[in-house]
């Protein structure tokens, strides 16, 4: 399994997922002349990365894993955790990746992308005997502009739209736009951020299957793009490529909303283990 996780990390780092590339190509058609020059360079860089099997960006990110483990899956969670940590070290060496895990107290780089609490691993328990792991490395520029908003509940979803638009404005050119925006509505403060980040795992060339959420996602994209910040903050039609929403029930007194950005290079891959079959895909 270690090999397959390293394979998934390599795929995530070197191969832009099809849903992400689709939407960049689609955006290219409608972008302004200057924005087009940026998107063309992005697509060319993506092509070179795929050809050379080299990381798309020199900031290869800090690692998060999202694990869905079936109750009857034969390998124990503690073993899976060890595999994920070992795979991170191995991928850092073999691809190679830039070491990005810094000790907060000593300021020392651990050199292998493993450190205190990092990689971050989230667990979800499901029925059955399968295992699904999502790999999500994310660069520092887009994490720098993440926001948690506490919205007065009386403002409702309008308050959510306002908070997201403000976050996109504040982020400006910093997260290497056009970005993908993950939004987590409701829940507790930690859950709102977790959902926001997890929303980046959703397909980016689609919207929610829930019609009301899909409408909200589209409203946010239209309004954010009307700011005109554009590719790399140089002005243009596309400031965010898409927004995806995850939600949880809220407390009567809170409407917490997490906003998480990914630069255009949204890197992700999945490993699925079912019986003897292990599948790595994007």
């Amino acid at each position: 399994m270690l090999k397959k996780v390293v394979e998934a990390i390599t795929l995530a780092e070197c191969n832009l997922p099809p849903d992400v590339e689709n939407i960049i190509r689609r955006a290219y058609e409608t972008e302004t002349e200057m924005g087009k020059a940026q998107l063309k360079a992005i697509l060319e860089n993506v092509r070179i990365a795929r050809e050379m099997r080299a990381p798309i960006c020199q900031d290869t990110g800090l690692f998060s894993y999202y694990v869905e483990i079936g109750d009857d899956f034969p390998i124990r969670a503690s073993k899976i955790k060890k595999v994920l940590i070992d795979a991170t070290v191995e991928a850092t060496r073999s691809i190679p990746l830039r070491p990005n895990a810094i000790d907060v107290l000593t300021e020392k780089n651990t050199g292998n992308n493993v450190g205190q609490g990092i990689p971050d691993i989230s667990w979800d328990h499901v029925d059955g005997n399968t295992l699904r792991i999502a790999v999500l490395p994310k660069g520092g520029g887009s994490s720098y502009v993440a926001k948690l908003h506490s919205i007065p509940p009386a403002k409702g979803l309008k308050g959510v739209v306002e908070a997201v638009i403000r976050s996109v404005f504040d982020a400006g050119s910093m997260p290497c736009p056009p970005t993908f925006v993950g939004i987590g509505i409701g829940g507790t403060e930690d859950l709102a951020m977790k959902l926001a980040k997890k929303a980046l795992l959703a397909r980016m060339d689609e919207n929610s299957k829930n019609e009301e959420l899909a409408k909200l996602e589209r409203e946010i994209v239209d309004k954010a793009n009307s700011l005109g910040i554009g590719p790399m903050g140089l002005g243009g039609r596309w400031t965010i490529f898409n927004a995806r929403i995850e939600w949880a029930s809220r407390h009567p007194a809170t409407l917490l909303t997490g906003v998480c950005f990914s630069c255009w290079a949204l890197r992700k891959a999945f490993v699925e283990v079912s019986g003897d079959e292990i599948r790595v895909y994007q």
Partner: protein
Amino acid sequence: MVEYHLKTPLSEEDVRKLKVGDIVYISGKIFAARDAAHKKILELLKKGERLPFDPQGLLVYHVGPVVKKVGDKWQVVAAGPTTSARMEIMEAEFIEMTGIRGVIGKGGMFERTTEAMRKFGAFYGAFVGGAALLAAKAIEDVEDVFWLEELGVPEAVWLFKVRDFGPLIVAIDSHGNNLYMDVINKAKVQLEVLLKSL
């Protein structure tokens, strides 16, 4: 929007014809310098010392490259731009003291740099953030590296020979125009309109 292919060292005339929105491809020598290298170069020049290379007419690239040594030769693996805003506090003085004709980076710079570019004749070329391999491909040769031991790989000064390095969008020109500030000012007006409509 005009496309230019320019060769360093650039003259003041080369730079003065550039307007915001133009696209530039650079060939010739450029040098990599970010936070620590800016500080180091300014310190030396203020002490009246000479630099180990002549920056006159060159462009500075805000980058911390990923490099590997093959035999006794350095190769650039990835070299995407870093956020230029961090160098804002030093760049105006840097332009004045080194005689460079431009800055390559991402995310843009602010009033002081814009003013220095107007006064001394320099421009800011925006390179696509994250396009690390595209940049590396345009770097033909590492001609030299300075203060490698003292500053480390990402912070050292790397002298690159490049061919058609770009596309660089002229985002600050030598006439006081700053595309980023225009974009943000317009976005601010639109933000108010949006918030009122909610």
